């Protein structure tokens, strides 16, 4: 009886340990993680990307809907093909990268969670902060849990990967970025595409 109880307790503990939430670090040593942005105004299209991504997400493969985390983009890492456009974008007239060095999104709640295999889709509501302005937005995301795949990405490391893909649109006017101005050349709508992978070493 005692042996049975010990065995059951061990199994329960092992199960709890396996189902424990893991923390994934999104600082990418390979430099693949990126956030693309696109502004399609009537007179001009602006396409760029940001690479300075960091943050952490806590993910439990058993309960994907309980995922929580924060993703940060370094404002200074926003890149455009034209150097003058980039300079203007980061200046105090637009994003003011010196005063607001980070753009971030922190999740609060996962809704419409659907899991098939290792892939989960959901609508995530959270706080998006841009140029010091916080706004609650809902973003459709796709999470792919890749167990024991960290070694394929970072040699000599064991662990898991979590891939997050998201596409959503914000309005610069909502974040006090020259609201209502220059909309013929700089669109109010900013399409953002996030493609990032986080690592959870073992």
């Amino acid at each position, binding site marked *: 009886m005692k042996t049975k109880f010990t065995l059951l307790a061990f199994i329960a503990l092992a199960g709890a340990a396996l189902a424990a939430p893991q923390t994934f670090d999104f600082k990418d040593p*390979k*430099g*693949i*993680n*990126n956030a*693309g942005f696109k502004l399609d105004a009537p007179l*001009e*299209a602006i*396409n760029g*990307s940001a*690479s300075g991504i960091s943050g952490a997400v806590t993910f439990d493969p058993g309960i994907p809907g309980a995922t929580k985390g924060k993703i940060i983009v370094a404002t200074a890492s926003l*890149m455009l*093909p*034209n*150097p*003058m*456009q980039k300079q203007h974008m980061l200046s105090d007239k637009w994003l003011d990268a010196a005063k607001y060095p980070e753009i971030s999104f922190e999740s609060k709640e996962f809704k419409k969670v659907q899991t098939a295999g290792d892939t989960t889709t959901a609508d995530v509501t959270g706080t998006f902060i841009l140029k010091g302005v916080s706004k609650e937005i809902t973003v459709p995301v796709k999470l*792919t849990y*890749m167990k024991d*795949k960290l070694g*394929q*990405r970072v040699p000599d490391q064991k662990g898991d*990967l979590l*891939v997050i*893909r998201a596409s959503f649109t914000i309005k610069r006017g909502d974040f006090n970025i020259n609201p209502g101005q220059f909309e013929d050349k700089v669109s109010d709508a900013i399409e953002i595409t996030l*493609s*990032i*992978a986080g690592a959870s070493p073992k």
Partner: protein
Amino acid sequence: MKRALRIIAGVLIIGATAFWAATGANRGWTKTHVPKKITDEATGLEGIQWQEKFVPGVDFLGAALLGAGVLTGLSFLSRAKSNNPAIKTEQ
């Protein structure tokens, strides 16, 4: 002098247009960096690497046109060299 300025202006326009066309006839602004897509084999994620590359745009063409215009304008201001010996004697 007048002729030389006009020839330089013509060469500037033709050269700039040929360079612009040869580098892809970019109808946007001049680029100093171009994005290159890279794929992470482990995750399938597509990343972007920015490579330094000069791609002239319409502002480059405009600057060349302006330069050629200035040179052509200067050519009208410069005096033509006289070959008339009579004038030389008068001087």
